[in-house]
């Protein structure tokens, strides 16, 4: 019974916690510029994320180690120094973007400039981490995040043609702006397969003491949760495509993106959009912050855990506090959160091969996963993702310059 409850909570949490500033930005832009044509990119990215999340959870449940700890032990600091530094940089930028996104959500409702909300939001993030254990953080974010289902509801209320939707799942060449199309496809991948998600999920599995007996819960949560979560992302794209594309409104700001809710929700449009954006971004910001503490503590071998009293893991607590402060400094300068988001998703794609490569070794090392090693499909997927990731890593910077 407890496993069923865990499963349901896990799936619900995945749905509610899926959509954040990166997925909203990229899906809204994709829908406004290319209609349904990039639905396949969200589906593909979702499948990749599901497989990587399942592997992270399996690694944690069997080895009782998080992803960051496993990489340090198996590959040593020489290898880890590069992806670790890159991940911390990306997380700093993305955290600043999430805080900025949450601040803009409040600006949409109050009219007060988003920079004024940066520090109060930062304080709220810190207070949540100060007072809540892992389960409360994860499930709280997930449950409140269910407001993002409003994207799915909006899409449903606009009655998109099932045939047109179906066609969007088949990769096709765009009729215009091929470079921009390619850039958005790659950005959707970068926004969906965020590095922090993998370590956060594996750290959570360690904190919650997931065991080998619960691998089926891990697998089901990873696939079902990501599948449903991807539907929310698709809801953003479809709503944007149905409302903004016919008017040829290209999403360059969240204020423009909010207009996508007007036909479906009328007077409630801006409130719902602001809630979905704000809660989605806030939840992601909390996860990013605590994950920074996880990564630092796990790599350096400090005591860590959201379930531990904060004084018993002082370096872990200090690490996430410092990262939060640095991100607040970036956010308060006033960089456009949408631009910060697009830069961080591009950087994610650049480092993706380094993040995926360790899985190829770890998931086949019996010392870590015992007899739960990856089969041909898992290994084939990782090999393909590493190669494709390497090619995209080379292509993404020119694409960002030309099509970003």
């Amino acid at each position, binding site marked *: 019974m407890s496993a069923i409850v865990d499963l349901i909570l896990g799936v619900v949490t995945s749905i509610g916690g899926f959509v954040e500033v990166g997925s909203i930005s990229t899906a809204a832009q994709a829908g406004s510029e290319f209609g349904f044509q990039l639905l396949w990119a969200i589906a593909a990215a979702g499948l990749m994320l599901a497989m990587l999340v399942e592997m992270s959870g399996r690694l944690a449940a069997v080895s009782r180690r998080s992803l960051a700890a496993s990489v340090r032990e198996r590959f040593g600091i020489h290898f880890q120094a590069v992806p670790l530094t890159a991940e911390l940089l990306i997380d700093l930028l993305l955290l600043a973007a999430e805080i900025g996104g949450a601040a803009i959500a409040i*600006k*949409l*409702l*109050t*009219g007060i400039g988003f920079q004024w909300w940066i520090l109060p939001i930062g304080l709220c993030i810190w207070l949540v981490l100060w007072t809540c254990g892992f389960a409360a953080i994860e499930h709280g974010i997930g449950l409140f995040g269910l407001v993002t289902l409003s994207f799915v509801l909006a899409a449903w209320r606009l009655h998109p043609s099932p045939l047109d939707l179906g066609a969007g799942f088949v990769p096709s060449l765009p009729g215009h702006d091929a470079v921009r199309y390619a850039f958005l496809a790659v950005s959707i991948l970068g926004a969906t397969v965020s590095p922090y998600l993998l370590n956060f999920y594996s750290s959570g599995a360690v904190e919650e003491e997931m065991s080998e007996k619960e691998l089926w819960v891990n697998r089901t949560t990873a696939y079902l949760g990501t599948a449903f979560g991807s539907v929310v992302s698709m809801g953003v794209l479809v709503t944007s495509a149905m409302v903004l594309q016919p*008017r*040829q*409104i*290209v999403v*360059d*700001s969240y*204020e*423009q993106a*909010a*207009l996508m809710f*007007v036909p479906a929700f*009328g*007077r409630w*449009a*801006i409130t719902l959009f602001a809630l979905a954006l704000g809660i989605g971004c806030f939840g992601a910001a909390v996860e990013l912050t605590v994950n920074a503490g996880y990564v630092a503590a796990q790599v350096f071998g400090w005591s860590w855990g959201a379930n531990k009293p904060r004084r018993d893991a002082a370096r872990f607590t200090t690490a996430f506090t410092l990262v939060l402060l640095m991100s607040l400094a970036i956010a308060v300068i006033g960089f456009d959160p949408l631009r910060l988001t697009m830069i961080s998703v591009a950087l994610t794609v650049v480092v993706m091969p380094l993040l995926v490569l360790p899985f190829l070794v770890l998931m086949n090392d019996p010392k870590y996963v015992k007899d739960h090693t990856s089969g041909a499909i898992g290994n084939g997927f990782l090999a393909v993702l590493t190669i494709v990731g390497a090619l995209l890593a080379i292509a993404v910077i020119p694409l960002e310059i030309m099509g970003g």
Partner: protein
Amino acid sequence: MRARFSSLVSATLIVALAGCSRQDERLRQHRKHFESLGATTAAIGEAWLAGSVSGTYTLTALDQTFRLVEQEQTALASKPNTLIDPRGAALSQAAEKLLRLLARLTEDVRSGDAGALRGHLAEIPIKPSESH
């Protein structure tokens, strides 16, 4: 000698054509963004008139649109060749008009004058063409 001269002329033509094509693409992108911002202005105004959005959001969104038009105008002016081009000059003028219009629309919302706003919406200088 003649062959070398022909090669030089061909090379010059290719470079010039490439430059023109780059200029065309730049102008096309700027037009696309200005049209988008014109359409955004219309959408915001119509939503306010329909009572679908609050005055607070409308003012916020108009202000943000104003900033985006300014940014796009600055980007357009950053390459002097684009302003010399008649299409670029026309875009720059349309952007200037759109900025003034956004300022008027903001006043209309502040004073709650739906009639004036409706009239001003009809004056949006740059919007996507119907045939796009």
